[in-house]
């Protein structure tokens, strides 16, 4: 099987930025060629018969996008999402791979669950799934999971995401111990005493709605603690779902000092503010909560100056019934896989990021952090996303491949989406 992707603008930071054709043989990239300079040799690319040619004229061809923060809900909460529906949603969203957070039921804190997730994802056959193991067994924050076991089974990182590691000693040990296995620690930064029963951001909107708020400080105080522990241990630390100006500032300063810290944010934090909660919209409820315009601007600055390395969705499916509850009782989280790319492309349109920077944050940096190769060069696995930057569409949750519909972006008119998603040489999504 020989495939040629023709006429696309290939953006692969450090490797390509221009019109290139990519030739794929079986599951690997055979070569990337500049069609303006054909070799003209007999038996050259032009005289070969291709099993399939993909016209990528007017499109961008980039290394496979990776969403390093996704809740696939399986095992345990298959009514919200399964590995199959989650992977279909990922493929449609342009992601060739996702990292699956461990807060399933049972928790992914052992090799059997990790292996189960990987097997299920293979069976589904859409995007790849890289499991994230739990920092502590059962996410209880009372001890270390067996990172050696988790790593051998295929885990690429560890996190207690959904819950903070409250015990500072445990966090220190997790950072130290995980280094031996090359597993990065992804930290959900939240002081649960400060966030208390906060259902949204603390401030004017919460006060007017009569909802208990969680202050920015509930997040930033833990970001600062974890940076301190990162500097103490010298181990790599990745801060999940950054939502506040104070966190961005703390991470920026830590990076200046040379700390081994990276960070991610999600499209909703650079697109929406707490105003979206007005009228008790549970589709705008997540943890950390949507913040103020000042925070949103700080997130944009952090993305622009490189303080924030990664855009990840924190894709968190919930059933319609669960989100129809009273606001304070409704669960946290929104789906993101099928809206992330257009919302992120908007940053390029607004001049916040270059295309190159966007691809770094959505493909290159996530791959580097979880230790996988992701570049459009000969010999690499053919994980490729083709983006149509001009495709307009209206977000219609009933058409989501995800099993859940909990999005605050329903009805939004967006521009740009995945035209084609290829995983290991196999086309798993193609826009008609």
């Amino acid at each position, binding site marked *: 099987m020989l495939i040629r992707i023709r006429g696309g603008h290939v953006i692969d930071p450090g490797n390509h930025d221009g019109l290139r054709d990519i030739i794929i043989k079986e599951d690997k990239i055979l070569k990337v060629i500049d069609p303006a300079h054909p070799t003209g040799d007999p038996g050259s690319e032009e005289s070969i018969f291709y099993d399939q040619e993909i016209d990528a004229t007017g499109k961008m061809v980039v290394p496979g996008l990776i969403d390093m923060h996704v809740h696939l809900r399986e095992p345990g909460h298959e009514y919200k999402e399964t590995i199959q529906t989650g992977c279909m949603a990922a493929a449609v969203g342009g992601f060739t791979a996702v990292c699956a957070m461990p807060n399933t039921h049972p928790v992914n804190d052992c090799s059997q669950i990790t292996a189960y997730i990987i097997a299920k994802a293979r069976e589904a056959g859409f995007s790849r799934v890289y499991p994230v193991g739990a920092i502590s067994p059962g996410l209880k924050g009372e001890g270390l999971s067996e990172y050696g076991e988790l790593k051998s089974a295929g885990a690429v990182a560890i996190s207690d995401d959904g819950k903070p590691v409250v015990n500072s000693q445990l966090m220190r040990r997790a950072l130290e111990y995980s280094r031996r296995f090359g597993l990065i620690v992804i930290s959900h930064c939240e002081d649960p005493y400060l966030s208390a029963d906060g259902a949204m951001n*603390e*401030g*004017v909107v919460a*006060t007017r*709605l*009569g909802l*208990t708020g969680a202050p920015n400080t509930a997040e930033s105080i833990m970001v600062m603690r974890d940076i301190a522990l990162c500097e103490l241990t010298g181990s790599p630390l990745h801060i999940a779902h950054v939502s506040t100006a104070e966190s961005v500032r703390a991470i920026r300063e830590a990076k200046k000092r040379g700390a081994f810290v990276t960070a991610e944010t999600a499209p909703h934090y650079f697109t929406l503010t707490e105003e979206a909660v007005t009228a008790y919209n549970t589709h705008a409820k997540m943890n950390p909560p949507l913040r103020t315009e000042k925070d949103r601007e700080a997130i944009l600055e952090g993305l622009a100056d490189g303080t924030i390395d990664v855009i990840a969705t924190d894709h968190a499916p919930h059933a319609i*019934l669960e989100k129809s509850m009273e606001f304070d*009782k409704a669960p946290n989280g929104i789906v993101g896989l099928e809206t992330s790319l257009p919302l992120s492309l908007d940053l390029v349109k607004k001049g916040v990021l270059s295309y190159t920077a966007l691809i770094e944050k959505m493909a290159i940096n996530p791959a580097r952090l979880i230790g996988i190769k992701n570049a459009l060069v000969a010999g690499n696995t053919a994980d490729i996303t083709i983006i149509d930057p001009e495709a307009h569409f209206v977000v219609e949750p009933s058409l989501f491949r995800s099993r859940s519909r909990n999005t605050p972006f329903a009805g939004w008119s967006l521009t740009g989406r995945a035209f084609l998603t290829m995983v290991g040489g196999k086309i798993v999504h193609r826009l008609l």
Partner: protein
Amino acid sequence: MQFAKKDILDMASFSVEEITHILDTADRMKEISERPVKKVPVLRGKTIVLFFHEPSTRTKLSFDIAAKRLSADTISIAAASSSMVKGETLIDTARNIEAMRPDILVVRHASSGAAYQLSKVLKASVINAGDGMHEHPSQALLDMMTVREKKGSLKGLRILIAGDIARSRVARSNMTGFTKMGAEVMVTGPPTMIPRGIESYGVTVVDRLDDAIPQADVIMMLRIQTERKTSFLFPSEREYSAVFGLTAERMKRVKEDVLIMHPGPINRGVEISHEIADGPHSIILDQVTNGVAVRMALFYLLSGGAKNVDTD
């Protein structure tokens, strides 16, 4: 005027004209409760469901009496006896209630926004009888009715609300209502109980109760929820009473014609000393009496009363 609202959810969505219209209607309703036969046939054949998902004595009784004085049929559902203890969701329970075709649903619920959420799915009118920390509009209306009755007008009055502002739906509804009607609202309480963004209500935060007391035409003391110990809001009832409570000592510095209010139930000796609660300035029981009149007015107006009866 024509009263066009389907629901009574919060003070924020009322215009000055609507508030005035409700208060005027309530003034006229009050007389019915003074008759030997306290019943008029205005709402005969209407069904009103009192859906109280949180404990309540006076508010529920007040709505119930108001409905009965207008000849409506009332049915009460308490959370503990409803299917919600069997795991049914709020929306499902409400839809089931609606399937039995009530005209008005009066809702008390511990979650802010619950009445709003119900109003979006129900065809029946919804009256918010208190939702979490959000609003309690009929309480604000009865408070405004009582103050207007005693003072003639609300314009230019200085209203002091003291206590746990952050967690009080009564405070929120009153801050909105009184400022709309041209009164000046001051709030005071322990700094742990003053929420961020309170200025957006157009009220003044006064740090010390002692500084606010001499200026106030009306002092409204809020109930302290003594069961909330885990949030570290105040050290003890003893200190609360001494620093933030309305004591006999503080009463020496009030305006001569000050009105003392409390939405009840009172923690006597904590936020207000008992001799003040029962004293000559207290209008606490007038509040309760007017509560019935205000709720009669709300039922009447929601049922399209103004369409049938000339109220001008």
